[in-house]
């Protein structure tokens, strides 16, 4: 697990926005069964205005990590620190206050917006929540309108209902909601997966532009290694609850070192028949080698 420690060390010099150390999360499955360890001593750090991508397949624990940082699932051990403050076991009141600094954008832009509330009502919620008496009436409306314009929508869209927007526009609304309280960190949990290709590119560019303008940090959770070099500075690859490889995004994607990352890269089909033929051969070779190695020690189940 040397790469993981180096990832932490790299950001130890500058004040980190988020620092996760040896985080273990267990899901209890009733009295009879032993708890399921979804995350196993995971360490990770996110610096200011930095994007760290968290890559893995379903069941790798990548969303669990996001949820643990958001306080939606409790940690079994380890610490989560936000700007130096330990928030692993934050009290509900502190947790609510933290939502001004840590926001989230989810995968499903259809489910994440209440269909019976207008966009403006939904967007105003983060402002209502923090009992900030100074953010009232006109000021609140102005901030909602500003957030909508920031994500490329019209300020007048505040009066409309989510049902009147397309998937890509809804994802923009979800991003606007995350931006309203001016957070330091946004957990993006597969924000592109439910979107069409042309819209994915729009949202990816939007997230990058916003980072340039606002200096917000992202923890970008994704299953798609192809988008990683375009959005992330650094990557952590999760496999069955463990970080198996970390590194600078471009380097890791072009020259993966861990066999699992290699498999991920080789498995993603290339949008070019010639390159894909080569990649398919590489993947088959990888598989053959993997079977020869079996049981692959590196990919073995955690105990």
């Amino acid at each position, binding site marked *: 697990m040397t790469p993981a420690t180096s990832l932490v060390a790299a950001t130890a010099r500058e004040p980190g926005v988020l620092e996760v150390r040896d985080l273990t999360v267990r899901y209890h499955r009733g009295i009879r069964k032993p708890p399921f360890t979804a995350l196993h001593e995971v360490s990770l750090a996110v610096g200011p205005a930095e994007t760290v991508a968290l890559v893995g397949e379903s069941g790798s624990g990548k969303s669990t990590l996001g949820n643990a940082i958001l306080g939606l699932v409790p940690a079994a051990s380890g610490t989560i620190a936000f700007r130096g403050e330990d928030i692993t076991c934050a009290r509900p009141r502190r947790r609510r206050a933290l939502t001004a600094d840590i926001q989230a954008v*989810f995968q499903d832009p259809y489910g994440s917006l209440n269909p019976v509330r207008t966009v403006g009502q939904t967007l105003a919620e983060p402002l209502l929540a923090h009992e900030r008496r100074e953010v009232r009436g006109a000021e609140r409306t102005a901030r909602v309108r500003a957030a909508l314009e920031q994500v490329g929508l019209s300020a007048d869209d505040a009066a409309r209902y989510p049902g009147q927007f397309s998937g890509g526009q809804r994802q923009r609304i979800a991003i606007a909601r995350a931006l309203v309280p001016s957070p330091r960190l946004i957990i993006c949990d597969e924000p592109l*997966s439910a979107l069409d290709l042309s819209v994915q590119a729009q949202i*990816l560019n939007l997230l990058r532009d916003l980072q340039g303008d606002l200096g917000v940090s992202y923890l970008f959770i994704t299953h798609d290694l192809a988008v990683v070099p*375009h959005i992330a500075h650094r990557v952590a690859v999760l496999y069955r609850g463990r970080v198996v490889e970390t590194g600078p995004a471009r380097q890791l994607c072009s020259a993966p070192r861990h066999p699992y990352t290699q498999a991920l890269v080789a498995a993603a089909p290339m949008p070019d028949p010639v390159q894909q033929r080569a990649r398919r051969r590489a993947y088959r070779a990888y598989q053959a080698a993997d079977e020869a190695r079996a049981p692959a020690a590196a990919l073995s189940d955690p105990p």
Partner: protein
Amino acid sequence: MTAGRGRALPGRALPGRALPGRALRQMASRPLAVASAAWLVLVVVAAAGASSLAPYGPQATDLAHVMSGPTAAHWLGTDRLGRDVLSRLMFGGQVTLLGVAEALVVFAGLGITLGLAAGFAGGWTDRLIARFGDLVLALPGIIVLLMVLAVYPGSELAAMIALGAISCPVLLRVVRGATLAIRGELYITAARLSGLTGPRIVWRHVLPRLAGPVIVQLSLFAATALLAQSALSFLGLSTPEAQGPSWGNMVGEASTVVSQDPWLLVPSGGALALTVMAFGLLGDAVRDVTAGRHLAPPVRVRPVRAPSKPMPGRPKGRAPGTAPAGGSMLSVRGLTIAFGDLVVVRDVGFDLSPGEALGIVGESGCGKSVTVRSLLGLLPGGGRVTAGSALFAGRDLAAASERDFRRVRGSMIGLVSQEPASGLDPSFRIGSQLAEVIRRHAPLSRGQARARAAELLAQVNLPPGTLARYPHELSGGMAQRVSIALALAPGPRLLIADEPTTALDVTVQAEILGLLRDLREQTGMAMILVTHDWGVLADLCDRAIVMYAGQVVEEAAVGDIYASPRHPYTEGLLAANPHRTPAGGVLPAIPGTVPPPSAWPAGCGFRPRCQYATDACAGGPVPMTAAGPGRLVRCIHADTLVARR
């Protein structure tokens, strides 16, 4: 985590969600609902204003006219003491409706608060409240009421509070169930992450969604309470005659003289019956208007019989330069599909040679899936082929009857869909599901069918032990292998794979793509692959058609389409792919989104999003034109694209 891209949630994005105003308008269009509401308003106004509106006092006797029947002086007649029935009904309504209101308040108060608490808090709170509800439901209601009335003799208030309390578990369960469902919604999590407190989330997000089911329960209970109140009063247990009129004791009184004056039973009994009915009908209407108004319309996939009459506008010739359809196994021409009046697929044409793999690529809402599903007679509700032909094995699938489709489906054309588990029945083992399909298409014994099932599983690289498993015991990749085995069982000549790997992890996707490729080599079957993923297309297909806004915009061999796209949409969609842009660069996105079929522009469908668009593009339908050997493109600027490159 990769589940549900693109078209995962059809129908949810429909504009014009129900607003309160719209709900009211919908109610107004139902005559029964309007009549019920009007009756209830009349009853309430008459009862509330009885002291000023009623022609006589409730106890004023007119001994000259006893049991008179309806007259000009007494519209609804008089009772045996000569008291005006109409006035007594109005005064009696006060007691009766007040009783209903008391019971309703207790019922709603307890039911909603406890149900919300149980559903929203969960855990121990939920278990305690649910058990409490079960316990109360187990009490015999009549006996509890009689006991309460024994302690508080004749007290209507006590009886009605008791009635509300012992009935509240019904509402509690409804509210708890609805709250549990709403609590799991992503927007509740999002609200929590916006920093809203629990009560605020309940107030802003949960309560509005509960209105429909709660109103229905309240209306039903109002009817129950009305009957219960009247029954108790009829029996003289609450509001006895001495305390003044109520609808119940009026019925009771009328029943004693029913042989002398049957009319006397009509006003009081009629008022009761009408009011109970009005509560029920109003509840029904509210349910119909509110139920599911926030949900997606049900997406039913049912086969729609193609129109039996011969279709107009049959085989439209494809554009010049098209290869003749001689050697093709499937030849689609001018295929047009509509849902109601809404055309969603326009003039689609392509050919498929035996053993060829054709990819249909495009974004969601472009008509890819609808096109291939029409070939199997599996258009979603309301969809039908309005023009064109699809010749396959001597049949025209565009005009085929359900009977024809049954012969084609499975045995000649197999289907693998996006959601692997959706094709599997959760209550049967894999083995029996496979054997059923095998025996449906071939006269084999059970034993032979089982052996064939094991063979098929081996063909899709699953261990024979899978036969004894249930679908829920399989991973997504295994389930997709099983659905492929199911599709292969009858030995189809054509396999339609509709986004077969979209819901799968990337390493599993690679396995499934490899499997499909191997199967094609082994069986020599042709394949139509619907996908939005250029990588999947490159991996599996020989030729591709690109669809946009219900039309084919480009057709070419796969190698050509990647090397030199001729349609601006193809070019843009390829460029938006992160693989094809150097790391860190801005991704060239296509502005805007795919318009819904109702908003397709005239002329070229891609015009509003196209960087090459000129006024000429709006001129009229753009034809498919030849653009090199085996290539077709629907763009008047195709040459400009080539020149720019």
